């Protein structure tokens, strides 16, 4: 019986790989986009324009304060009502990118605020423009504070990507649901699904831990 199940599971191996691939691709695209957007939002949020800063703050709070499943449903099922048709993949990317950006924005803001004002004043006094101050002086120092939680956030977001199975994307979690219909051993199937996520996340967990240790010691530039 268990032997049969294992055989049938082995037959699902191509499907599992596809699911794992989908999870990785979804996560990777939205983490890259979310990181870029998150840094942009974080920089704007600390930029001194009250209105922009307030709007970003409100949006971030809204996203952080609502379930991701609800956000994904809103994007996938409600937007079409307003004439914006999205396929599941695009909707998934948008929802995940937005979620990533909002969490990363907060991490970046904390990092920027941790840089002593004397640094900004020194940069200001030497005539660096706003962007040059950010790029040359503030961000490199903020990275020490930003990097460890940023990588930790990546882990959370890879796991959150499992929610996109709810709109029919065949990611690792959905593969689990499909397989369990053929192989009625939920424990075994979802144990293997869990292993799949863990394989993707574990290197990042290790990286976060290493960064945390390094940041404590480094005084100069951040080196990975």
């Amino acid at each position, binding site marked *: 019986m268990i032997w049969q199940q294992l055989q049938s599971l082995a037959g699902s191996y191509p499907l599992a790989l596809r699911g794992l691939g989908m999870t990785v691709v979804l996560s990777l695209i939205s983490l890259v986009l979310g990181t870029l957007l998150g840094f942009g939002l974080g920089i704007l949020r600390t930029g001194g324009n009250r209105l922009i800063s307030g709007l970003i703050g409100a949006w971030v709070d809204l996203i952080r304060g609502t379930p991701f499943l609800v956000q994904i449903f809103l994007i996938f099922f409600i937007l079409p009502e307003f004439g914006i048709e999205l396929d599941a993949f695009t909707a998934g990317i948008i929802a995940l990118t937005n979620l990533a950006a909002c969490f990363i924005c907060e991490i970046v803001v904390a990092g920027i605020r941790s840089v*002593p004002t*004397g*640094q900004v*004043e*020194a*940069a*200001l*006094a*030497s*005539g*660096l*423009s706003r962007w*040059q101050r950010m790029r*040359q*002086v503030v961000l*490199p*120092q903020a990275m020490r504070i930003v990097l460890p939680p940023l990588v930790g956030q990546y882990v959370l977001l890879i796991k959150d990507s499992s929610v996109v199975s709810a709109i029919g994307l065949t990611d690792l979690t959905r593969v689990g649901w499909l397989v369990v219909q053929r192989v009625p051993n939920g424990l075994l199937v979802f144990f293997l699904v869990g292993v799949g996520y863990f394989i993707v996340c574990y290197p990042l967990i290790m990286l976060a831990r290493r960064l945390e240790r390094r940041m404590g010691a480094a*005084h*100069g*530039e*951040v080196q990975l």
Partner: protein
Amino acid sequence: MTKTGLTKTGMIDFRGVNKWFGSLNVLKDITLSVEPREVVVVCGPSGSGKSTLIRCVNGLETIKDGDLVVDGQRLGDPATNMTQLRTEIGFVFQAFNLYPHKTALENVTLAPIHVRKIPRAEAEKAGRELLAKVGLADKVNAYPAQLSGGQQQRVAIARCLGMRPKIMLFDEPTSALDPEMISEVLDVMVAVAEEGMTMMVVTHEMGFARKVAQRVVFMDAGAIVESGTPDEFFSHPKTDRSRAFLSKILRH
């Protein structure tokens, strides 16, 4: 040309400047003119507004009323490009404020490369020369955390000089230093003054003031109470408040 261009102005010209922090009047009706190549030492008790005074000159603080004209440009005037004006003004902080993630040389070359758009190789050559001039030829590649306080402050001065400024402002540049490092920084400042830099220096170092300052300005409670040559001020203070202040700093 701003309207003030018509009258004769100093390099730094305060005219009836007032500044408030909330309800606190930190600068009271300041009128002071610093001529080109002049060195003015500003002293006074803690909280009297010395830092605020010089921070106004490069716009780290903004003024409420009165006129402040620096290098012919009126601060707060929409026609004045503050970023551009700041490139002409070096500022040396009490706490050095070197960029901790950059080496001594990178600290010195950052603004010349990015603001003055000087080619990197040229900026680095000039940067090495400046670091050698402040006695740090062997520390070019050191990070600030690897330098002593006196060395960090000399890098900070070199960083300002790298922009070839017309004016240099110093806010208690030696008061965060151990006593044995004070003179190495003062020596560099004397050299800069002797090359004809226009300087405003907040300091209680009388030796420095006597050596290079044309004028000492004494502040108390946000106002300029007394102003004169170092000799007049230190030997024959005119007001009770300056006498009380001097007796205090002379006792240490």
